[in-house]
């Protein structure tokens, strides 16, 4: 197939060629970045919470007198354990994807001048680690004596042995052994006794200067500030019905408190709700991509059809002097391939410009290079599919057209 005659034909239709190429270029830029954003959302949605989500749930109550915390905890735990299907019920400060609590900046020296990380503290009674299903990677789990009571309205014991996640340890002490290290939050001191594989924060925003897994587990005895949220474990197939029963049971267990309906759900439900906006955004991006490719394809079909109609006579002449149907078909296919290639070349540059703008305003990472060839392949395929119909129509133009005068 000779390219030169195609090029000289395109030269006669510079404007239309340029328009289609620009359309392809814009489509290429938006396509690459939109797919990239979808991929980013999906990665965020795959966050490993580190807990046995499918077996867990949380019950949160408010409106109680802090002085009654110990008594309330005892009644709630006993009452919730009595709910049929509940395998364990523990006092906990918060659960992944639940209400945010105890988020604070920590420092590596007592003066507290520098805060290298903002972390979430989880507090839990003995048995919580087992119930959550946390995996220990190094060090040891807290012994019974490590669980200390909270006095008055204090948030933590004066000095606590704690578990930190691998991600937080790597952030605070890169490449070093975190075991035995210490850090501070206000007047409270913490010493690392173990490292957890994963444990995600409750409410994660990608824009905050906070890691999704920068968490600390502080073994604490229930009472004082540690009251009002209860971790429930049940068989995965029972968890939703158990949670329904548990929510209803609160009114009988502690009639004086208010059930926080918003935050009393299974962890699976909380997770689903937490990522709902991301899913919606990803869905909308998919919609944009589909509409975009559709419109681009229709544009190609429209213009190619016009060209075929315009060149009927020339096609007829070519056929009359010996060109096969395949030749005509390939002519239009090659022509489309050339225009799309031109558009893609422009589009790649545009994609990077768009990515740079997005990085500036939306803290999106760099567009990986492999998106470009994939995007190019997609657009080439789209172009070929779109032009197939008009090209086949061109190939069916009979040679006899050459002898007719309009």
């Amino acid at each position: 197939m000779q390219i030169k005659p195609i090029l000289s034909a395109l030269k006669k239709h510079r404007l239309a060629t340029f328009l289609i190429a620009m359309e392809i270029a814009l489509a290429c830029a938006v396509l690459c970045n939109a797919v990239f954003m979808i991929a980013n959302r999906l990665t965020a949605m795959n966050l490993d919470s580190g807990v046995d989500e499918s077996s867990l749930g949380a019950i949160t109550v408010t409106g109680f007198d802090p002085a009654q915390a110990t008594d309330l905890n005892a009644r709630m735990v006993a009452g919730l354990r009595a709910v049929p299907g509940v395998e364990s019920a523990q006092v906990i400060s918060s659960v992944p994807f639940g209400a945010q609590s105890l988020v604070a900046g920590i420092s590596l020296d007592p003066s507290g001048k520098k805060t290298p990380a903002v972390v979430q503290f989880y507090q839990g009674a003995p048995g919580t680690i087992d119930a959550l299903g946390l995996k220990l990677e190094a060090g040891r789990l807290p012994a019974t004596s490590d669980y200390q009571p909270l006095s008055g309205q204090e948030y933590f014991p004066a000095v606590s042995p704690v578990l930190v996640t691998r991600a937080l340890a790597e952030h605070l002490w890169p490449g070093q052994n975190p075991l035995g290290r210490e850090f501070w939050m206000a007047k409270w001191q913490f010493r690392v006794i173990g490292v957890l594989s994963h444990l995600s924060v409750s409410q994660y925003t990608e824009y905050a200067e906070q890691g999704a897994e920068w968490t600390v587990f502080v073994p604490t005895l229930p009472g004082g500030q540690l009251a009002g949220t209860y971790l429930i474990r049940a068989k995965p197939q029972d968890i939703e019905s158990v949670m329904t029963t548990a929510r209803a049971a609160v009114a009988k267990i502690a009639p004086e408190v208010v059930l926080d309906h918003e935050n009393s759900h299974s962890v699976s439900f909380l997770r689903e709700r937490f990522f709902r906006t991301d899913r919606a955004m990803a869905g909308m991006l998919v919609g944009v991509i589909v509409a975009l490719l559709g419109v681009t394809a229709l544009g190609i079909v429209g213009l190619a059809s016009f060209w075929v109609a315009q060149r009927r006579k020339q096609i007829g002449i070519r056929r009359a002097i010996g060109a096969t149907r395949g030749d005509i078909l390939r002519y239009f296919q090659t022509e489309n391939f050339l225009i799309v290639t031109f558009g893609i070349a422009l589009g790649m540059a545009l994609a990077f410009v768009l990515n740079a703008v997005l990085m500036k305003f939306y803290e999106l990472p760099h567009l990986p290079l492999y998106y470009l060839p994939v995007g190019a392949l997609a657009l080439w395929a789209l172009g070929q599919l779109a032009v197939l119909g008009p090209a086949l129509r061109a190939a069916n133009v009979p040679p006899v057209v050459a002898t007719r005068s309009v």
Partner: protein
Amino acid sequence: MFGYYLDLALRSLKRNKALTALMVLAIALGIGTSMTTLTVMHVLSGDPIPQKSAQLFRVRMNVFPDDSFRPGDKVPDNLTRRDVEALLRDARADRQAAMSAGAMVVAAQGEPLRVATRYTGADFFPMFDVPMRYGRAWSRADDASRARVAVISSVLNEQLFGGVDSVGKTLQVGEQSLRIVGVLGDWNMNPRFYDLSNGQFGDSEQVFLPLSTALDLKLSSSGSTNCWSRTNDARAADAPCIWLQYWAELDTPAKAATYRQYLQNYIALQQQAGRFSHAGQAEALDVMQWLDAKGVVPADVRLQTWLALGFLGICLLNTVGLLLAKFLRRSGEIGVRRALGASRRAIFLQCLVEAGVVGLAGGVLGLALAALGLVLVRHQPTDYAAYIHMDLRMLLATFVLALASSLLAGLLPAWRAMQVAPAVALKSN
């Protein structure tokens, strides 16, 4: 003449239905998505209190001691109780109110209710044009005497008292009882600009009571609290914590300027008093500046808007291409018209009318698509979803955008069409 062009345009569009449908569809898709996202932007970036947004000012200060002060940091939104009390004492604005959000549990038949609360001053109600259904707001004297009074929303009034005039009845909060002095009419600010830290969109609070009373009763407050050193009570009069929001009403620009000067003087006095050695910062932002500074429009929405506009751009390019094909295909016809005496201008206008008809048709279909898009937006899990609706301005904007973009798309093809040389076109026919 316009009528004739319109007739020609309709005939021409009817001749090639597939191509016409394609163009209308492209414009409609572009307009539909753009108008959906623009409507969301319009609602989110709208003025929640247009009659007063230039007279209400959010006061912010930076009074951090030197070891917590970092140059270049943003001015904190909230104030310490110490500064709030000083500003309230001076009372240099026409009206002023300090406030904080809170939550409390009120006794009700059956389950106790947890209600969102606002602790503020008497000026709050006239400042923000809060309508009263029954009774009235409390007075400045009530603020001073820490009166046990409350104003409740009409929703809570419905829940607790069945919607009757409940002025004079009591609201039981734990051991304390508050006397109801007023019931709000319908009042919802969206975005809730007076306090953006506790949900930017949503219903107004259920209970309002004097800040002084709330402090006296040690009711719990919620929202951002930032302390720079250890304290046992972040709400104490001299606590090193910023947690209170402060609004001032200044009825004229001159007063606003005077008030800003007063704030500068206040900060300078604090510096001289030895609270800090840096220059300190104090500013008063009007409602729109404040909304702008807080970035109420979510990043996702901005992104969607840009995506939609980019999409509209692609749709328009598409339309340009198709119109070009359509007009040039009629070169013969145009040649005849030119030969019979039509001027280039006449050809140009005729083509633009045709483009405009396509645009209007696209606008109508686009409006339907936008309505569909907005239904989808309202089903999104966002706190603003319920407040998104299309108003008359956006409705008109839809047609203006559709017409403008189709005329824009028609410019180039129409230009090319009028360049058709009559002789050549007639000959090649």
